[in-house]
């Protein structure tokens, strides 16, 4: 079957080849020699790699928290029927649909140290006195790329939660209201527990791709300033493609796989449970 050929040739084979490359000292154009775990040992004592690993995890952690909370709130809003709710549901997906690199370019321009429109607005309201250097200092840059990641991913969570909310039996909420439960109580006691399976699947799935995000960070900061926003993928790109050390780069790219397997396990398990219940 053609699918087996394409998947085997262009997916399974590269995956194994990647593992092999990470065990060699290959540079662009030469096959290199087997060096065992040397690349991985080198990475452990490499401060840039350690910083990138740490920031990848922090980036994923904070972005997922933001996407879950803001996505859920948005879903709760558009789950109600109000004038223009259909339009709101359609338009809210735009950040997710638009090509990330192109919208990241708009963010880069919004983050301009001198001419940022966000700074202009905040100064107009006298919240700040001088323009914010959004991507100039390490901490600012880290916060900025996390915010953009939340911006891009929250529509996906909102759609997922919206589907989850519509699957909740209305009788349960009505019964709770009759028994005198406040909206706050029925949310935490009924809605949120029922949304937990959806949350697990959304977070695990999104975490796999947030942990290996490339385009957003590469467009906005290129991993800078001073490697502050370096993540697994940007570092792998720099080591392997810009620097030419394929072996080193492959080791960087493959290193988050343990975390990804954990998330993948959650996704596969949830999908299987889903199959069993439907």
């Amino acid at each position: 079957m053609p699918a087996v050929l394409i998947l085997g040739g262009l997916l399974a084979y590269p995956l194994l080849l990647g593992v092999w490359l990470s065990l060699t000292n290959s540079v662009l154009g030469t096959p290199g020699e087997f060096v065992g775990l040397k690349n991985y040992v080198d990475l452990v004592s490499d401060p840039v790699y350690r910083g990138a690993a740490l920031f990848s995890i922090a980036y994923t952690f904070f972005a997922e928290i933001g996407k879950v909370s803001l996505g859920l709130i948005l879903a709760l809003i558009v789950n109600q029927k109000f004038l223009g709710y259909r339009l709101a549901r359609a338009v809210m997906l735009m950040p997710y649909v638009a090509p990330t690199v192109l919208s990241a370019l708009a963010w880069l321009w919004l983050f301009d140290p001198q001419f940022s429109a966000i700074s202009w607005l905040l100064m107009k309201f006298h919240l700040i006195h001088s323009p914010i250097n959004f991507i100039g200092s390490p901490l600012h840059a880290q916060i900025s790329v996390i915010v953009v990641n939340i911006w891009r991913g929250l529509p996906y969570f909102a759609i997922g939660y919206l589907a989850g909310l519509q699957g909740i039996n209305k009788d349960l909420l009505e019964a709770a209201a009759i028994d005198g439960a406040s909206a706050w109580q029925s949310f935490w006691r009924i809605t949120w527990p029922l949304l937990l399976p959806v949350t697990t699947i959304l977070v695990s799935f999104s975490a796999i791709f947030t942990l290996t995000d490339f385009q957003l960070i590469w467009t906005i900061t290129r991993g800078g300033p001073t490697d502050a926003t370096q993540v697994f993928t940007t570092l792998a790109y720099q080591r392997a493609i810009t620097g030419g050390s394929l072996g080193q780069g492959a080791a960087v790219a493959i290193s988050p796989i343990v975390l990804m397997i954990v998330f993948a396990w959650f996704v596969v398990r949830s999908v299987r449970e889903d199959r069993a219940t439907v």
Partner: protein
Amino acid sequence: MSRTRALRIYIPLAFYAVFLLLPFYWMLVTAFKENQELLVTPNPFLIYHWTVEHVVNLLTQTRYLTWFGNTLLLSLGATLLSVAVSYITAYAIIRLRFPGSRTFGTAIFLAYIVPPAILFIPLATVLIQLHWFDKLWALVPIYATFLIPFCTWVLIGFLKSVPRELEEAARVDGASNLLIMWRIIFPIAIPGVITTAIFSFTLSWNEYLYALVYMSSPENKTVSVGMTSELISGDVFQWGQLMAGALIGIIPALLAYFFFAEYYVAGMSGSLKD
């Protein structure tokens, strides 16, 4: 309208609208603003002097149109290949029930969650060996590696809901497997096919990493890659031109989405459900 309703719905919604739409609005105002006004203006959110200069320069003095054409061809090619292969595969998994078809289904799902970020380095060496480096069409099978698992998974979900009786009736009437697959089941699976096609097209249109690494000549680049590597040179950013390019570059993805919004949302939920 009651005040609580405004408080509970429209005010938070307004905050979301500002946050979610800000970059798009910013592209729009920047693309049609005179250069001088980009830096000195009483209010950056308004346009005082309109101009189409940025758009004209982008289309006449850069390779933007070539990149746009490349991305379009590439996305259509990858979509066509992936949807066709996926339909056949999904049909085989669902209807033929060959031994191990269930395991194969799970393997497909796993393949779909392997991110390109861990494959781009080894794939680069494969492309060099095949002498496919810097060849635009090479991206068609490359994109198929992430599109086929996705499309197959979604199509499996769709094909499951097609009643078996339909097929059995056709078989009793003497129809061959091939005839059943294309003449009987395919027309019913069209919503699923459209869903996967829309998704494949937008995913290909948005792809960046593979195109960035594997295409080096300026005339072989895609919109996203060309914009970030050729239009940004040094520290001087032509923001008017860049935002004009971003604005035009998001249109095909948005058109595909807005015309087929229901299919698109079905694909988003179908991608995780079975």
